[in-house]
């Protein structure tokens, strides 16, 4: 340090202070890097599982199914149905008919059944993306040696078909349409329950409630509820929505009972359970947003003789709306990823028809992922990885649309 800066009686320790600052700078940067590495590892893992070589053998050679020289891929729906009828046991055929009458199935649906039930390609080995890229020759040699009958294909597990097909037990024809629709239906009811009630409660607590012991207890409990493990909400949902409110959640009350929903384990129950789960989060975030509206704005409004409701409706809510929406987005994102409460509420793990009403049985993407990862075969691991990508895309697109919505609100000036 230059002489002229030194003052008697002070430590003149600028160098030391700067060094301490540098240490903290490095620590903060390292924390960020750890987070980024974790994120990259996650993405790598998911993408690694979603693509790669697959070796499979067909139980029945498709060529033998050709009728009058027409290959099985090109046959009409009626031909395919009769093929199924002649190849399957009558019990298996009737079961399919009961699930969904062949008349109302599409040709593609029937063709899938043929592939699934008659041709039955069996996966014999699966490789992930990284080995598929780096050790392609070894993989080919292994397949040629161990499975001479098998065909080796580089597949993307994440395809349009994967997204658009219903769930089946065969990995090669399995899809997540059922789960995506289940997730969307569930989230719809979650939003319908949690958004109006959450925002309403936040308005009450911030603008109307007096600061007395009762309201302080309510506030504390809302904060605590936000931290309650989600499985507890599952048990709550099971007790309330599935059991106690069964006439409502199963649709019996509306005379809508059919084969798909004879109990309360429905989309509606799941949506309401997740709604309860995210309600405290939405309330807290909405309260923050309402509190962030400057007091001067309220004063301006009251100062010209506006009533409380006019002030809240015209000034507080519009200005808090971007923040409220951000909080809701976060809460909904959490709800989309929830698994445990839905297991308790009774999401179906194997279900091949789409939810069509609030009273349908359902599965959701996280449930599907959970179910597939718990299977021992590698190919289900790949299906799970592809479903995770679908879930991520679903999350990102919902968030993006919510951000657009939020920006529309805040771009009034």
């Amino acid at each position: 340090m230059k002489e002229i800066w030194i003052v008697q009686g002070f430590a003149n320790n600028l160098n030391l202070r700067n060094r301490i600052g540098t240490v903290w700078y490095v620590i903060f940067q390292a924390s960020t890097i750890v987070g980024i590495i974790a994120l990259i590892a996650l993405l790598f893992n998911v993408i690694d599982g979603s693509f790669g070589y697959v070796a499979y053998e067909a139980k029945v050679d498709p060529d033998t199914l050709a009728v009058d020289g027409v290959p099985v891929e090109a046959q009409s729906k009626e031909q395919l149905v009769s093929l199924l009828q002649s190849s399957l046991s009558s019990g298996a055929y009737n079961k399919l008919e009961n699930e969904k009458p062949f008349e109302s199935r599409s040709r593609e649906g029937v063709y899938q059944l043929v592939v699934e039930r008659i041709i039955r390609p069996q996966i014999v080995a699966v490789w992930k993306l990284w080995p598929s890229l780096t050790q392609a020759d070894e993989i080919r040699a292994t397949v040629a040696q161990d499975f001479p009958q098998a065909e080796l294909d580089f597949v993307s597990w994440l395809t349009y078909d994967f997204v658009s097909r219903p769930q089946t037990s065969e990995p090669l024809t399995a899809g997540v349409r059922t789960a995506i629709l289940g997730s969307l239906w569930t989230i719809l009811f979650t939003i319908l329950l949690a958004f109006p009630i959450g925002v309403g409660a936040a308005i009450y607590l911030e603008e109307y409630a007096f600061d007395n012991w009762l309201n302080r207890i309510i506030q504390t409990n809302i904060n605590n509820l936000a931290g309650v493990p989600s499985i507890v909400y599952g048990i709550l949902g099971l007790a309330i929505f599935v059991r106690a409110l069964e006439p409502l959640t199963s649709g019996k009350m509306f005379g809508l009972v059919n084969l798909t929903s004879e109990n309360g384990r429905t989309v509606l129950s799941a949506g309401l359970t997740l709604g309860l789960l995210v309600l405290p989060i939405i309330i807290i975030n909405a309260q923050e947003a309402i509190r962030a509206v400057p007091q001067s704005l309220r004063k301006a409004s009251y100062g010209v003789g506006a009533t409380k409701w006019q002030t809240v409706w015209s000034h507080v809510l519009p200005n808090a709306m971007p923040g409220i929406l951000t909080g809701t987005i976060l809460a909904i994102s959490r709800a989309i990823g929830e698994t445990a409460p839905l297991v308790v509420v009774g999401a179906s793990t194997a279900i091949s028809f789409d939810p069509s009403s609030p009273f349908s049985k359902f599965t959701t993407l996280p449930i599907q992922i959970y179910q597939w990862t718990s299977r021992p075969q590698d190919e289900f691991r790949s299906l799970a990885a592809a479903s995770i990508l679908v879930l991520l895309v679903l999350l990102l697109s919902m968030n993006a649309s919510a951000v657009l919505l939020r920006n529309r609100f805040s771009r009034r000036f």
Partner: protein
Amino acid sequence: MAMNKNSDHKYVIEVRDLDIYYGNFKAVTGVSMKVERNAITAIIGPSGCGKSTLLRAFNRMNELFAGTSIRGQVMFNGEDIYARDVDPVEVRYRIGMVFQKPNPFPKSIYENIAWTARIHGYKGNMDELVENSLRQAALWDEVKDKLQQSGLSISGGQQQRLCIARAISIKPEVILMDEPASALDPIATLKIEELMQELKKNYTIVIVTHNMQQAARASDYTAMMMLADRETRSGTVIEFDDTKVIFTNPKDKRTEDYVTGRFG
């Protein structure tokens, strides 16, 4: 309660033995004063002596944000605004307020006034009302071409005049101004003061100010506030008189010290 606008009372607001409490803390003690119609009454005094608290008691703004309670009476045209059957919203409708920091709504200039009129059920020609209000606030010429722009896009002085235009658009009898020029530069301040002289033809104005020159220049009556005693830290009006008297021939020694800059 129907507040009679064309009252014969010479004094619009009469304060009788007013005490104001924040919880248990008595912030203002024993204030009695009369606010004359179509005049400008200034409230001056050192920081923390309760000027703004007293002003906000005139239209019941205190209880909304600070949870105050009062003892005594504030009469508006002879009726107690703290009476049980009086809706504070109606009080604030008849006794408007302009704040220290300009606070236009984050809406267009036009909407700032139109919204205010609309919530009170104004049924006349809105364009006319907006123009008249802005003209009365001496702002029309500056903003007539940008009525659809945000009220926050104009300068601070213009924003404050917009707030005044907003306040007078619903034709109150009294306008309370809480240090309306303290966030403004001298030129904008001068404009506000000139505007006040115009406005007092139609309205009664009560203004709190830190700026003694402003009180001397702009007001007709001045209330001098000070802490009644140092123990309780409770403020009171120690002298209330013609502005000329307060600034040239005050009766109280403390007033003289304060207005001559020898406060201590």
